């Protein structure tokens, strides 16, 4: 065995049970948890500190101008995309490249639908009503958190599209490696989904 070959890039490490990439993604997600954790803490900190009444008071119900219906629809779309992501991985695992790629494509389309709804029906609508990040602390945190989340979704879409398109070459060279990468993407995708599951209630419902 040549000293230059990195061990455990594809096969899992006997002790940790993870290949390098998967381990790396888990660690990356840990840091993402801290990132969004800090933002959620900000939300709590500012909401606790907000006065009961007055212009700086925390908005509720109608005042938020957020429709739980649109938010709920987006939640459904994201959950569905998580399911198709898993299905894609399962198909690749079963050596079924065509179907796997189809599910990947569905995932990407659902994600794009999410972002489109977000921008077209939520952001654009609010900008139209002159509700911008500087309107109040609530909208500041709304735009920042959902914006950062939307960036994560877009990043995910780029990665998924890469694996549908140019990245698919890897399937022919090393199927296991390719499937592993889809698994890592899936982990990330589920995390982004999970963040939304927290975001939705704190912004739309509470």
């Amino acid at each position, binding site marked *: 065995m040549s000293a230059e070959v990195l061990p455990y890039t594809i096969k899992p490490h006997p002790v940790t049970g993870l290949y390098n990439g998967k381990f790396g993604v888990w660690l990356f997600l840990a840091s993402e948890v801290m990132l969004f954790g*800090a933002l959620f803490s900000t939300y709590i900190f500012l909401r606790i500190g907000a006065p009961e009444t007055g212009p700086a008071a925390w908005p509720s119900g109608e005042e938020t101008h957020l429709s739980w219906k649109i938010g709920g629809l987006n939640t459904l779309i994201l959950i569905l995309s998580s399911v198709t992501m898993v299905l894609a991985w399962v198909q690749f695992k079963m050596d079924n490249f065509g179907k796997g790629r189809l599910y990947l494509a569905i995932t990407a389309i659902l994600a794009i639908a999410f972002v489109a709804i977000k921008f077209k029906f939520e952001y654009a609508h609010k900008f139209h009503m002159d509700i911008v990040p500087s309107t109040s602390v609530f909208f500041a945190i709304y735009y920042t958190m959902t914006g950062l989340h939307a960036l994560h979704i877009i990043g995910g879409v780029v990665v998924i599209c890469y694996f549908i398109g140019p990245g698919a070459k890897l399937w022919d060279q090393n199927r296991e490696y390719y499937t592993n990468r889809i698994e890592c993407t899936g982990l990330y995708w589920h995390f982004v989904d999970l963040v939304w599951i927290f975001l939705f209630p704190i912004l739309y419902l509470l």
Partner: protein
Amino acid sequence: MSGDHHHEPSFIRKYVFSVDHKVIGVQYGITALSFLFLGFCLMMLMRWQLAYPGEKMPYIGNIFGEAAMPGGVMLPEFYNSLGAMHGTIMIFLGVVPLLVGAFGNYVMPLQIGAPDMAFPKLNMMSYWVYFVGGVVMITSFFVPGGAANSGWTSYPPLSDIATAGQTWWLFGMVCLITSSLLGSVNFIVTIIQLRVEGLTMFRLPFFVWAQLITSFLLLLAFPPLEAAGVLQLMDRLAGTSFFLPEGLVVSGVLQTQISGGGSPLLWQHLFWFLAHPEVYVLILPALGIVAEVIANNTRKPLWGYRAMIYSTIFLGFMSFIVWAHHMFMTGMGTKISAFFATTTMIISIPSVVILTALVISLYQGAIRFTVPMLFALAFLPMFAIGGLTGLPLGLPAADIHLHDTYYVIGHFHYVVAPGTIFAIFAGIYFWYPKVTGRMLNSTLGYIHFFFSFIFINIVFMPMFWQGMAGVSRRLYNQTVYAHGDAVQSLTVMSSWGAWMLGLAQIPFIINFFISRFAGKKVSNNPWHATTLEWLAPSPPPHGNFETVPVVYRGPYEYSVPGASEDFNPQHVTTEACSSVS
């Protein structure tokens, strides 16, 4: 992964966009040393204003332009920029990249017998993102209004209303944070997954352990600062009020364009949640280097190796729950301050344990006073001073008088300047032969060491007295206060110490470049060390080891009774150790 791997890569692939951890380590090292030097130069400029407030700076006063130093006299805003950028550059562009990016990257994979980092491309990316962050920071000096001038802590609302340099600072910080995150993922995976056969966790050199804990700190502590940076960017660019309460009146003008409803303290919580673990990011790898050098030069196993590791892990955990001890003066109640003061006292215990273990390791050793060893030895008392002076600052009542005075400056500089930077020098002298295949000249090394040791104490020791006298930090001119004017002579002394310290680095700079070509050529293992990096050729080729090593013992098997040599390397079988003469 076949034979075509061995073809000669192009110059750019080999030295610029290289994925080899050693090249990246050297890139990090050179860049970070340059930034370290730049940060030091900024400080030397500030020391002029401090020692001779309002006087024209001789010789170089006129080159900084009208916006910074009209007529050679430094303006307060430029002084504040220098202060903020000195801190930022030293910590985020100098010391951390050196300790983690350079030493961690170069030495750690060698010490665990790995051919490279787990994700070589990610490694390259983290260097280049760091580089971009550095360029952004440097560029910010040239934007109108100058670089960030709200202190390296960038407390809002001051930083929210500061000049454009602050926005650049935030972008730079986002780059540096991203780079650190990529690096830390890579480090953890590499250390956990790529150890060679036989190298169990408790056979790892202490340096690798320090890197592991450091990476966890970076991984978990940096994202909140990234979040805080994003929030401050929103405040500055989108006009939000995350850190701004209602009814701000800046320069007599009511700020009606902001909604209010935010909290200035929010930033401090998010910032110090990072910045306290950051302190341990600065010190743990330094302790790792010192441990390596001490074990090697006492020719004796480290005393309390396991206790040190447990202490390090404990430090890592505790560092996440002490952050608010930087905020005792923000109007904190008795209960919360008692909680954070208690955790602060608790976190001092593992530091004491590590320091004690290192000094007891000297006992019954056979101490070789090599240049790296001198730096490592000098590290110990100075780190002790730094640590001990943290005690009055950690007691909320004593902190009332000492908070935000020069005492604080003295305290943390003793930890990071005579502490960490001496450890960095120890590391450079120790691993230089591995990187280049040549030794650094030891006469120049001794001169460098003794002068640095004396002058660095002249720089920082007076600060404790200044702090005692009540002089606040970040003052452009302390003589406006009676208590500041009374101790101005200490400032002068400190300044002269700093300039002399600058001169004392000249032998090192000469040594560093000349020895690359003219230094004494050495074998793979010039220090007769035991850890795996000394098995690889000097300098190690791409892929590091000719054959994958197997590890048979712990990292510091020096002076084993019955062995033929006074060191038993980790990779040599027990039979070979006792039979080969």
